[in-house]
């Protein structure tokens, strides 16, 4: 059919009609008679559609105006049941339909067994009804069943018939109240009586937490006691009592009212979704304003109170309080309009009843009766001629209502009224009124202040809760850390920091934040290489990640290495060389980038090595058979020119990095002694005192010459005992002289330095009884670039673990099912953990605000600064079998924390005293080390000189250098003395002053022109050399002024401020004492710790004081005025041995007892953390 043509024809037709003509179809179709029939059909449709759409041209009144036909809005018109063939549930006989509700149909029926009349309510539509309707139906039956009240329709039975729910109710023959009323006003007493009865019935429902929500005259049924329940003669509603009889019926004292139709009832405590679909339900005229607004949440019992008021209104006036010409209008009236006062319609009505009625119809629920019972009681008071409680709406009330209706006009009128009222007031009774106004104002102000205070208190309370919640959550996490806790704790603290409460203590937040910042932690970042079990992982310097799938299986298409850039998420596949003959199924064992990140090497179990040049866009690849057994490790020379491969065939080979693989440049041994030996082997490139390739050979660890692979001299024979017969992988961190040796399930940390090779610790998981690190073979090891963290992975256990080498403790355990490979990125910020079919990338937290320095394997015994400002440490370890012997390393570190040189080291030497000391005198360029034996090691520009000293006492020896380079030692002897030490000489100086009580000296600190000495009897003595020779003992005695702190307390730590004007002493019981110099004036003291203060320092600027204690806390104090105020607390797991400020004033060095590294807090970074969350800005 020619659509375009037809359309054109129809268009013409329309235009003609619009032009007022009556087009003839024959005329239109003259040229195309074949289209006439279709055009005719369309014209017919056009007219039909025109009827529906109306014609917008027509300007006559809208045919859809709202004048008539409102019956369908107001409710049901029962249909006469002409077809009466209704199957009834067993035991019932249906007599006639009574009416239909929204979802149910109600029949009058006879219950056969009991032979009584019932109302039988069944659901419409059976299985086709919506779930929500079923739910409402059940809700109704439940609601009615829960209620037992003479004025509520009682339920007889609930059941199912033909999969349709039904229930039977008491039958009321009197019809509904609506029908009985029929618009006729009732006498006040009758109306009050009916309303009271209904109110009490509704109250009983409210008592059961059921709100009716659709109370209206149509839902109140009437029974008369004389109703013949058993008889079948009761009339249907349809031809029930007529309007004429209704008044009589309502006045009948035997009339019983029954509230019915709980179809919309809801349980106040029920939150089932089916009433919360946003629909407004109920009947508009009787609907409470909150219901009309659709505020489902606020529809409660008071909505029923409103409805009761509306019913009372209708009883009194014959019409509901609100009735518009449309639903919209009615809803609007309910929401915003005020009902016509009852007495305007019924002037003779008692005022009280109007008051009661209007109180129910208050828009705001809280202004209504608080409950239906209160309404009932007031109605009863009215009926019994007592005073009602409700107060009529006064003029103010009316004004308020008017104001609510017309806020703008009201404001204007109010302004005018106020103006006109106050003007004469000012003129006439100025004074009195002013006083009164002032009183009023004061009262108002007081009320306002009280309200503000209450509001403020509530706010503060909430904010305080927020603060404490954040703080305690962070503290809880610190006490019971889990993987990722530091990030959570930071979040909590940031939130706590925002809390506007005076309880907020910045020190507490700082301390918790420092704890989170200083802790090593992991957080899952992303997953890469999904679908592959990683056999080996390597990072390059750019942060790219290479992952070799464990199984190289051509059938599965896994003959490649994935090169992934986590930053961009891109993955490139580097295929194996095509020409290479690779075993059918092989396993990847080693994967490494060269130090310059140009090359990627992969080792396979078959002994094959594959190489890619990864700088090219399309990486070139090459592979060769390097070994006859599994490639165990691949390392490079630092210049990336040579590659070394170690294999389980027992050989180590050296290859040019871009060679053709035909012949190794060197091999060790030349020929494997037993080619079939499957010795485990590890390999590492070592750059310590000697440089070489460190391998695990059959006879133990060997250091091989990096060029010839010849075994290096026997001077390093000490290596052998430590590594001997240890088959396992090795990892080396030459910067901290550390070698990690894996022995199956165990891990040993070995210190390997000139002259010393000792296992310094064995890492163990506290929950494993056998003292091992894992319960199965450790498959992979990775060392953090800092050398302070070790990551291990165990396939059998399915776990990866992160170890802190400074404390030798386990810091995190993470799941790694079937994991075999693990690696740190070169920046140390990412840990890749290969697991079953996915590789997880974790962010490594910590090691930013607090880093580790000065690790030498042994526990740090003392830290200090050399005369030229470098950090110096003494680390020592006593032998378990002989405490007087042990190994010592004294080291000096550069500003970057790299080992500069070892001042001295000795293995298993004499180690008697517990006192280790480093003292320096920048002015004289002298530094002195005392390492627990009878020697002082002097260090200056001239070199190192060891001077034997015979100390008097093995216990307390403290040494300090004065500006001239003399060493003063406080030796705990019964005869206190001082010792002056020279560069090459040690001469005992008898100090010999008399203290009156003989007490040991415990510590000494040299200031510019005096010495400060701490004693066991709690004295701090300031000794002025006074320019005289030190030998003049009396001079000390004469000039020494004394002050007593607490005689029972021994001074345990001393420090002097740079300007030599202030000394701080810390005592056994945790107090700090400020002592003014040089006159030893006491300046104050306070309890700083709960246990012995072990160490003190003041920063170069003199603003900051740090104290460490046996109570495991380091406290940082800031000088404000005359006082030091606590700034933050650093909590550790062990007693604090030593604290010191770095020279730059931005680092704080902390050594807890027994840890093998110095914790270096970078205060600038820490302050940034504080600023980040809004502290200290």
């Amino acid at each position, binding site marked *: 059919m020619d659509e375009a043509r037809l*359309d054109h024809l*129809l*268009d013409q037709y*329309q235009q003609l009609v*619009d032009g007022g003509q009556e087009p003839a179809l024959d005329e239109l179709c003259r040229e195309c008679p074949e289209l006439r029939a279709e055009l005719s*059909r*369309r014209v017919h*449709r*056009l007219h*039909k*559609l*025109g*009827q*529906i*759409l*109306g014609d*917008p*041209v027509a*300007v006559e009144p*809208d*045919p*859809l*105006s709202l004048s008539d*036909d409102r019956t*369908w*809005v107001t*409710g*049901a018109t029962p*249909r006469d*049941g002409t*077809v*009466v*063939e*209704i*199957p009834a549930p067993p035991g019932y006989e249906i007599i006639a339909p009574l009416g*239909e*509700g*929204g*979802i149910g*149909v109600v029949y009058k029926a006879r219950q056969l067994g009991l032979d009584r009349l019932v109302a039988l309510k069944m659901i*419409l*539509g*059976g299985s*086709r*009804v*919506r779930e929500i309707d079923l739910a409402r139906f059940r809700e109704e039956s439940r609601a009615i069943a829960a209620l037992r009240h003479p004025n509520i329709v009682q339920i007889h039975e609930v059941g199912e018939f*033909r999969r349709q729910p039904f229930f039977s109710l008491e039958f009321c023959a009197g019809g509904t109240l609506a029908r009985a009323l029929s618009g006729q006003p009732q006498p006040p007493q009758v109306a009050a009586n009916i309303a009271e009865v209904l109110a009490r019935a509704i109250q009983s429902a409210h008592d059961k937490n059921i709100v009716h929500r659709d109370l209206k005259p149509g839902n109140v049924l009437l029974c008369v006691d004389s109703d013949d329940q058993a008889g079948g003669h009761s009339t249907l509603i349809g031809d029930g009592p007529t309007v004429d009889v209704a008044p009589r019926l309502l006045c009948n004292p035997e009339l019983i009212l029954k509230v019915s139709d709980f179809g919309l009832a809801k349980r106040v405590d029920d939150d089932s979704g089916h009433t919360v679909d*946003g*629909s*407004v*339900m*109920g*009947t*508009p005229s009787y609907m409470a304003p909150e219901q009309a607004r*659709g505020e489902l949440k606020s529809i409660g019992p008071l909505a029923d109170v409103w409805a009761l008021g509306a019913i009372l209104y209708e009883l009194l006036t014959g019409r509901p309080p609100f009735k518009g010409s*449309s*639903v*919209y209008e009615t*809803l*609007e009236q309910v929401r915003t309009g005020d009902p016509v006062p009852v007495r305007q319609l019924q002037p003779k009505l008692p005022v009280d009843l109007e008051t009661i009625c209007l109180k129910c119809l208050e828009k705001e629920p809280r202004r209504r009766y608080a409950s239906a019972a209160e309404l009932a009681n007031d109605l009863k008071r009215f009926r019994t001629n007592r005073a009602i409680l409700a107060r009529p709406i006064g003029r103010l009330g009316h004004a308020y209502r008017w104001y609510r209706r017309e806020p703008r006009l009201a404001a204007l009128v109010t302004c005018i009224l106020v103006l006109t009222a106050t003007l004469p007031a000012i003129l006439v009774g100025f004074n009195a009124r002013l006083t009164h106004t002032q009183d009023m104002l004061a009262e108002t102000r007081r009320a306002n202040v009280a309200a503000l205070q209450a509001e403020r208190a509530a706010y503060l309370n909430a904010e305080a809760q927020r603060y404490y919640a954040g703080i305690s959550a962070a503290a809880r996490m610190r006490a019971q850390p889990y993987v990722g806790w530091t990030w959570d704790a930071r979040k909590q603290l940031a939130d706590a920091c925002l809390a506007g409460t005076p309880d907020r203590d910045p020190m507490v937040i700082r301390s918790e934040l420092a704890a989170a910042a200083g802790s090593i932690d992991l957080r899952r970042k992303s997953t890469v290489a999904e679908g592959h079990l990683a056999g080996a992982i390597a990072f390059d310097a750019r942060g790219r990640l290479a992952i070799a799938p464990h199984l190289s299986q051509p059938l599965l298409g896994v003959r490649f290495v994935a090169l992934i850039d986590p930053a961009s998420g891109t993955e490139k596949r580097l295929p194996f060389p095509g020409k290479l003959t690779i075993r059918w199924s092989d396993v990847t064992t080693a994967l490494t980038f060269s130090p310059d990140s140009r090359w990627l090497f992969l080792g396979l179990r078959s002994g094959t090595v594959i190489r890619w040049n990864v700088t090219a866009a399309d990486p070139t690849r090459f592979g060769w058979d390097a070994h006859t057994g599994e490639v165990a490790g691949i390392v490079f020379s630092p210049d990336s020119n040579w590659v070394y491969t170690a294999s389980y065939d027992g050989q180590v080979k050296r290859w040019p990095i871009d060679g053709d693989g035909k012949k190794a440049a060197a091999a060790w041994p030349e020929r494997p002694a037993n080619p079939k030996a499957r010795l485990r082997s590890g390999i590492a490139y070592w750059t310590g005192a000697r440089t070489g390739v460190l391998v695990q050979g059959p006879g133990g660890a060997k250091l091989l010459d990096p060029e010839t692979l010849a075994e290096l001299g026997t001077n390093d024979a000490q290596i052998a005992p430590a590594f001997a017969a240890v088959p396992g992988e090795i990892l080396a961190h030459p910067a901290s002289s550390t070698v990690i040796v894996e022995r199956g399930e165990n891990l040993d940390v070995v210190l390997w330095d000139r002259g010393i090779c000792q296992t310094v610790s064995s890492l163990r998981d506290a929950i494993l009884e056998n003292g091992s690190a894992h319960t199965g073979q450790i498959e992979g090891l990775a060392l953090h670039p800092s050398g302070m963290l070790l990551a291990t992975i165990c396939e059998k256990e399915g776990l990866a673990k992160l170890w802190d080498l400074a404390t030798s403790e386990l810091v995190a355990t993470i799941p790694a099912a079937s994991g075999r490979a693990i690696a740190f990125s070169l920046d140390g910020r990412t840990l890749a953990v290969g697991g079953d079919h996915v590789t997880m990338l974790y962010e490594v937290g910590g090691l930013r605000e607090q880093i580790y320095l000065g690790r030498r394997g042994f526990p740090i015994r003392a830290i200090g600064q050399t005369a030229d400002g470098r950090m110096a440490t003494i680390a020592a370890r006593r032998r378990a079998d002989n405490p007087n012997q042990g190994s010592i390393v004294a080291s000096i570190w550069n500003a970057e924390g790299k080992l500069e040189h070892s001042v001295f080291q000795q293995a298993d030497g004499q180690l008697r005293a517990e006192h280790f000391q480093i003292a320096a005198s920048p002015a004289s360029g002298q530094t002195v080390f005392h390492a627990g034996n009878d020697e002082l090691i002097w260090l200056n520009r001239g070199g190192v000189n060891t001077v034997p000293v015979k100390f008097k006492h093995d216990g307390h020896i403290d040494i300090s250098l004065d500006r001239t380079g003399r060493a003063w030692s406080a030796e705990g002897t019964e005869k206190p003395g001082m010792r002056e030490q020279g560069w090459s000489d040690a001469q005992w100086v008898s100090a010999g002053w008399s203290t009156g009580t003989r007490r040991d000296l415990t510590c000494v600190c040299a200031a510019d022109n005096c010495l400060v000495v701490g004693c066991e009897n709690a004295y701090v003595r300031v000794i002025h050399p006074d320019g005289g020779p030190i030998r003049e003992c009396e001079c000390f005695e004469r000039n020494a002024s004394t002050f007593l702190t607490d005689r029972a307390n021994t001074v345990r730590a001393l420090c002097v401020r740079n300007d030599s004007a202030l000394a701080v002493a810390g005592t056994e019981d945790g107090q700090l004492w400020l002592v003014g110099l040089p006159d030893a004036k006491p300046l104050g003291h306070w309890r700083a710790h709960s246990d012995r203060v072990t160490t003190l320092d003041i920063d170069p600027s003199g603003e900051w004081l740090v104290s460490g204690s046996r109570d495991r806390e380091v406290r940082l104090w800031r000088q404000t005025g005359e006082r030091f105020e606590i700034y933050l607390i650093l909590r550790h797991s062990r007693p604090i041995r030593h604290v010191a400020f770095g020279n730059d004033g931005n680092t704080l060095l902390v050594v807890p007892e027994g840890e093998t590294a110095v914790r270096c807090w970078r205060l600038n970074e820490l302050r940034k953390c504080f600023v980040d969350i809004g502290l200290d800005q």
Partner: protein
Amino acid sequence: MSESLKTTELQDLVDRIRAGDRHAADALIRRSAERLEGLARKMLRDFPGVRRWEQTGDVLQNAVTRLLKTLRKVTPDSVAGFFRLAAQAVRRELLDMVRHYHGPHGLGRHHESLPDGSSGPLSWLAIPPAEVRNLERWTAFHEAVEQLPEADRELLELGYYEGLKTDEIARLLVVEEWTVRRRWNKAIRQLIVALGDEIPSL
């Protein structure tokens, strides 16, 4: 507001709405609500089931309330924009209403014969098939309007769902009246093609 609106008045109303004057919005919204009520009543007037079912009132209230809620959220850019949004809401409510009576789960569905061909247990409530078909046609009608091209739908939205007169539409869209007329005719022709014989009757 059943009398015609002058465009300036309309524009003034919209300006006031945009300035946050709720009363101005209410005037327009009220107009739409009344139109919805009128259209619904017309659409369902002769549907016999409707009179029986009390819930009709509820359904209409729901529709009106939802419409109010929807429109109160709207901040129109132009008068036409407002009317079109209102018309969409009205259309949606009408569709919902038809579906309520005649959806897959609608109340009107129990007229269907049982599989054995006998009448269902509630057959005395049965709705004559012709009336059911008319409801189906109403559904099709509203859906067809929805499917019309933007420009045609606009005309029906303003003219039918919002009940605006030709001159009002012309002022709203800033076109000549005869253009409105022409586009209106075109929209109706499209609708006729889309609906075929299935045009609902009143």
